[in-house]
């Protein structure tokens, strides 16, 4: 039994293929890279997806050595994400499902980031920190669902770092380049630290950091301060979550898990709290088709399917709205 999963929630069009033993046979991804200094334009990204879809699907099939008629189901990330991008992927998935008479499996993009990390790191019940361009979530599994212990009240950590990076003129990938600048910083400047209970907030931090740049402070020092404050806010809520939930491990997933400085901080944090710390492998860190296929297979094996005619996209589909029958 094979399943093909499609990811198209934001800048990446990805296709993954899994078998019934949850082996990921293919994970092919094509990412839209915005013009220098710009963020993702949803329509431009959607156009990229429709132009590259056929090639990515064919490559994945070839890599997995699977034909369309060998498949049992198509999994599609229906949300959360950018409307035009979601609709492009959903249209392709519905077509494949109807044309080849395959079951259609709805997958929540956030759940997929969590499941791929658990699968790849072999973790049964960790505290999961999911940080990316669109999400900053601290979560554990309780009674059938992933419950959100803490999250961002406005923009996501990845989004904040990328935006700050573009505003000070660093090149793609902004995360890595902002951190490079930060490592050259010497002086820690004053910025707002916004931790509200278990939640964090990043919008005010960006405004304040950009103000320091305008006031003529060294870019390296502002970058250092921005990164220190942003990560300290997150680490604090993670530490609270560990103390509260008594979980024995921290698992980091999502595109922003590529951060070098945050990983260092979390290693120290885990040591201090006497828990283990693991990070999702690089190939599954950013958005990818493999994670949709894997999660789709878990759902499909528990009879989660959707009628193509009712398979609307859900741009605001929250993580804690999804039932997880396989755990």
């Amino acid at each position, binding site marked *: 039994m094979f399943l093909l999963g499609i990811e198209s929630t934001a800048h990446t069009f990805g296709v993954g293929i899994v078998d019934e033993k949850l082996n990921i046979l293919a994970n092919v991804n094509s990412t839209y890279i915005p013009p220098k200094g710009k963020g993702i334009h949803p329509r431009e990204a959607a156009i990229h997806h429709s132009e590259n879809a056929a090639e990515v699907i064919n490559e994945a099939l070839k890599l997995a050595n699977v034909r369309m008629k060998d498949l049992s189901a198509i999994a599609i990330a229906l949300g959360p994400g950018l409307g035009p991008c979601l609709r492009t992927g959903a249209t392709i998935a519905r077509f494949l499902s109807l044309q080849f008479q395959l079951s259609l499996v709805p997958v929540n993009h956030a759940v997929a980031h969590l499941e791929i990390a658990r699968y790849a790191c072999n973790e049964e019940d960790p505290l999961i920190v999911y940080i990316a361009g669109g999400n900053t979530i601290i979560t554990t599994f309780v*009674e059938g*669902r992933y*419950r*959100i212990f803490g999250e961002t009240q406005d923009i996501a950590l990845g989004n904040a770092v990328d935006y700050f990076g573009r505003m000070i003129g660093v090149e793609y990938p902004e995360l890595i380049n902002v951190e490079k600048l930060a490592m050259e910083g010497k002086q*820690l400047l004053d910025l707002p*630290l916004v931790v509200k*209970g278990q939640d964090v907030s990043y919008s005010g931090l960006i405004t304040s950091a950009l103000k320091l740049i305008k006031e003529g402070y060294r870019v390296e020092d502002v970058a250092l301060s921005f990164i*220190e*404050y942003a990560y*300290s806010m997150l*680490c*604090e809520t993670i*530490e*609270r979550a*560990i*103390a*509260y939930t008594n979980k024995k491990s921290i698992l980091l997933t999502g595109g922003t898990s590529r951060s070098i400085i945050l990983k*260092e*901080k*979390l290693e*120290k*944090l885990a*040591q*201090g709290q006497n828990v283990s710390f693991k990070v999702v492998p690089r190939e599954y860190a950013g958005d990818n088709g493999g994670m949709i296929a894997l999660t789709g297979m878990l759902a499909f094996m528990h009879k989660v399917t959707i009628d193509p005619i009712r398979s609307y996209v859900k741009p605001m589909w*929250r993580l*804690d*709205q999804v039932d997880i029958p396989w755990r």
Partner: protein
Amino acid sequence: MEIGSSRYTLEIIKDKLIKKGAEAEIWQGRWFDLQAIFKVRVPKLWRHPILDSKIRSIRTIKEAKIMYYSLEENVRVPYLYDVDLENSTIIMEYVDGTILKEIFPKKHKEFSFEIGRILSKLHSINIVHGDVTLSNFIMLNDGKICTIDFGLSEFSNRVEDKGIDIHLFLRNIESSFSSLSKESFEYFMKGYSIFMKNHGEILNKLKEIRRRGRYIAERRRVKIF
């Protein structure tokens, strides 16, 4: 008396770690002739050292201030003995009594009323507790209820923050004593209306808070409204 413990270390003994939270350690010991609690905000290695000491000292001052203001308004909290900024430590009274969580079902109406009254007083002077659980209230031997752990407290006049405080109380009762939650809430609100003239506004906010997405699961389990 000078702030900072170095000059009378001989009279101050911090000898037994009784609790290790995410942010602070709670030690038991002696302060001169008195039994005392030492709340120590420990350094975090993952934080930049300058940011770390800044955060620890700001929060220590704020917590002590909030406790002091509460005492001034006759809200029973542990008496402050000393604030040692150098070690970001608050030294306070050792409170002897029973944690409300252990005896709540015995007198849940009275306790709920009293917690409502305490929060009403705190909210009326724009202090929100931030961690309203039954573990943070202690019944003293004289029958009075003492409120502890102001680690997440804030000065705030926002209706939202006050609503969150009540939500925390409700959620705690629901998870620990769900069959008593309806009655407890009734008596809580009686106590809460004593000092809070705009308790209706806060109640509306509470309803809104509980309708939010992230609390869907709780809403399905228990119907308070």
